[in-house]
């Protein structure tokens, strides 16, 4: 039976949809995983030699993966190893160039995510697509509203969702507008959307990366709850410790290939790290790949000690804001950065990190308090004036917030420098010099591009990020605010970025790094602080910081 979905939808659905064939109860809970023999019996979902290219880049190369019903299966690998692509193929968001997906031995084809959901496979997204003006309940049922003749049966929806919430232990306020909900609640909405659509195989892409440690714990418990109610879980994670704690099996991807699948009970964390980073020999019972292994990253702390009498470069004095949107306002926020210092700021998403960045660059008005830069008050200065003083900002979404996607690469590198005396003469742009400079910057920052004239939108995500970083770091800035700087960068580019930051820092550049990744902050900063509801709840140094302490701060527990 190779009927293509959805043309043969009717018959296909009737014969092998997950909802009609009850999964044998023996697969439930963690029982299948207690013995290694469990795996070989019958693959529930089988991905066979899946390949997918994006232009010249092979994201997946002949990847095969078996899923056992009722298991928790983790996917690990570096940035750009093809994890997300593989998950998007399984959830119908991308179509493979080659290979096939089999569900209980039957070949299936998903043309769009709805097809996958109809077959019982769904992916919870990292970037939540919520309607802020709708309630939590409406956000869940949207697209599959109960009722008829265009009328929505709210009572039925409420009852169904309440039962669902109770069964998995969610305390989600269904009647509250999504705009007022926390990040963790929005994640619950995303999960409930899938469960409400009776999805049996749940896919998560780095579900815990933006959660505070205790919330992450709770999320891992949820995975067990879902497993015991008969769901199969597939999740991508960078946190190997949690992978080993919660998953039954783990598959390692490296440069688009699957290096192998292991029982988590049979592999040590060291071995896992080794495989993820080096992509080395994957064990005797799996294919061997000869891949030139990159040198493992060196996690050296920045070689810098604060001078005994530091000169402040940036002082925030009791800054209070009022116009924050979907983000906490700053509440009497005070912080002083010494010249030549790297300060990291973390916290759960939405606790005012972004508001702070907007304040510093001058895109949002300060309600009360003052900002002093190099001894000069800049509270009321425009972004242009602040840029001229050497303040640079890399926003979290540079494509929307700092770049011109429809314009040429050289124009994107010119942006913000168009008035520089050496790039124009009496207002007339000196294109030759501008393009030369653009080419130099792109080469120095390893931005892979075909021509200076191609529009920015043709670049891959990682290369756009590199270009955005290059705009921020080139041209002798004195204070650089980086929001999630390594987003979308692969390991090598992250290394390069870290080297650049340290190099610039040695030259006296001050950095303020905003990130939701504690590891990144611990690696890079001289001091790091946690924001909670628009306040700086704690400030410490990486040497003194403990994960437990930072986790408490992230949840608003002082001391």
């Amino acid at each position, binding site marked *: 039976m190779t009927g293509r979905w959805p043309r043969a939808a009717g018959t296909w659905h009737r014969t092998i949809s997950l909802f009609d064939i009850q999964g044998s109860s023996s697969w439930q809970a963690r029982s299948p995983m207690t013995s290694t023999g469990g795996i070989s019996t019958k693959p529930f979902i089988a991905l066979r030699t899946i390949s997918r290219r994006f232009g010249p880049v092979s994201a997946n190369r002949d990847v095969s993966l078996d899923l056992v019903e009722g298991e928790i299966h983790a996917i690990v690998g570096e940035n750009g190893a093809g994890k997300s692509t593989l998950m998007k193929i399984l959830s119908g968001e991308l179509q493979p160039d080659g290979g096939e997906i089999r569900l209980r031995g039957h070949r299936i084809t998903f043309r769009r995510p709805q097809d996958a959901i109809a077959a019982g496979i769904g992916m919870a997204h990292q970037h939540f697509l919520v309607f802020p003006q709708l309630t939590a309940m409406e956000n869940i049922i949207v697209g599959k509203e109960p009722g008829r003749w265009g009328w929505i049966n709210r009572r039925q929806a409420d009852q169904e969702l309440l039962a669902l919430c109770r069964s998995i232990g969610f305390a989600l306020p269904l009647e509250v507008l999504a705009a007022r909900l926390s990040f963790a609640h929005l994640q619950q909405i995303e999960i409930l959307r899938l469960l409400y659509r009776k999805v049996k195989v749940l896919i998560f892409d780095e579900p815990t990366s933006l959660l505070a440690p205790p919330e992450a714990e709770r999320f891992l418990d949820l995975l067990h709850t879902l497993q015991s109610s008969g769901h199969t879980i597939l999740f991508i994670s960078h946190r190997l410790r949690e992978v080993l704690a919660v998953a039954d099996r783990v598959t390692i991807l490296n440069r688009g290939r699957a290096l192998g699948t292991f029982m988590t009970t049979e592999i040590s964390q060291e071995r896992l790290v080794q495989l993820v980073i080096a992509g080395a020999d994957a064990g005797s019972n799996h294919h061997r790949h000869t891949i030139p292994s990159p040198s493992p990253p060196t996690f050296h702390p920045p070689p810098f000690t604060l001078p005994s009498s530091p000169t402040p470069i940036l002082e925030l004095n009791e800054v209070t804001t009022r116009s924050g949107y979907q983000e906490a306002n700053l509440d009497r926020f005070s912080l002083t950065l010494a010249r030549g210092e790297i300060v990291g700021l973390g916290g759960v998403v939405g606790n005012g990190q972004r508001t702070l960045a907007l304040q510093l660059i001058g895109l949002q008005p300060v309600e009360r308090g003052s900002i002093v830069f190099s001894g000069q008050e800049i509270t009321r200065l425009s972004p*242009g004036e*602040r840029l001229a003083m050497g303040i640079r900002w890399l926003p979290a979404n540079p494509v929307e*917030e*700092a770049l*011109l*996607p429809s314009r040429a690469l050289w124009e994107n590198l010119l942006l913000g420098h168009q*008035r520089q005396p050496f790039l124009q003469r009496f207002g007339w*742009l000196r294109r030759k010099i501008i393009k030369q400079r653009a080419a130099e910057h792109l080469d120095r920052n390893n931005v892979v591009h075909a021509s200076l004239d191609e529009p920015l939108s043709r670049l891959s*995500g990682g290369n756009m990020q590199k270009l955005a970083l290059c705009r921020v770091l080139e041209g002798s800035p004195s204070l650089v605010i980086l929001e999630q700087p390594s987003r979308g960068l692969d390991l090598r580019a992250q290394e390069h970025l870290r080297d650049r930051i340290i190099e610039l820092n040695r030259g006296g550049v001050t950095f303020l790094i905003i990130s939701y990744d504690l590891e990144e902050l611990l690696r890079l900063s001289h001091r790091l602080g946690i924001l909670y509801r628009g306040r700086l709840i704690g400030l410490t140094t990486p040497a003194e910081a403990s994960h437990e302490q930072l986790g408490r701060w992230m949840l608003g527990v002082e001391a």
Partner: protein
Amino acid sequence: MMSVARTVYSLARGLRTVPALILPIAAGGAACVMLAVLSGVQPLAVIVAIWDGAWGSTGSAVTTVTKVTPLLLTGLAVAAAYQARLLNIGCEGQLTLGALSAAAFAVTAGSLPWPLLLPLTLLVGAAAGGIWALPAIWLRQKRGVHEVISTLLLNYLALYLADYLVLGPLGDGTVMGRTPPISPEAALTPLLQVGTQRLTAAPLIALGLSLAFQLWLGRTAWGFEATAAGHNRLGAQTAGIAAASWQRRIFVLSGALAGLAGALEVLAVHHRFYRAFSPGYGFDGITAAFLVKATPGWLWLSSLLLASLRAADKWLQLMVGISPSIILVIQAILLLAVACQWRLPALRRRKEIP
């Protein structure tokens, strides 16, 4: 030698805009043929009549070129606003008030010598158009009112205001709805006169302005800032560009260009202001602009095309006996085809980017 090659190359690159015209023109032609067949007229006769009406004799050619001026300038007004991603639908009102103020000024200050009077009159016309654009951009930036709505409504205000002024304080005392004739000092001297048709420097002024604006956009730091603000407002702001202020400036400039179109029409063609003197030049400017993807440097082509159609409508009735409304239908089809064409890449771009 290199620079010649580079100029030729950049011109060739600029030509990429021209294929954009091919589909609309083909669609317009097809519509023309269909309508002709439906009305029982030889399709070829209609097309020949359009050509003859527009370019058949020196007189008709002069008429056609004269009609290019307001179309080119209102087209430039729309295209300019679009650089900041704003839509100025209010050119008709701005043009009317520009024409009226220019006429009124040229009547009252008629004693000035022409080297002073002429530029001042044009300036007054442009200023009136620019001022009429102000409320729209103010409402947009302070109150979030979309400029399409506000400029559209301002058109009616402008037309009735002009009616009131020309029938009252600024009129010539008759009920004709016109101002007294302007001082001959202010009128543009004809370069060529064929019968009653006069060819002045007005089309050249319009052409010069459109080309200069194209250069300004592509080659200067200010033009770069203005288009950056249009392409990604937040991105431009992050880069320190005063995006809101650029949008204001560009929008006022757009109104001023439409006002200038009205002033030139008075100084070059009518030599006074008449009620409803414009057959919808302001709206035709939208078509002219979007036929060439709002590229100022190519506006002369689209406005020449529209002017030819406009100039041919009476001839069409005379020679073929078909209603001149067919021209409006063709124009509407042109615009529809342009709109469809703009959607095409979006449909093609459905494939996801990694």
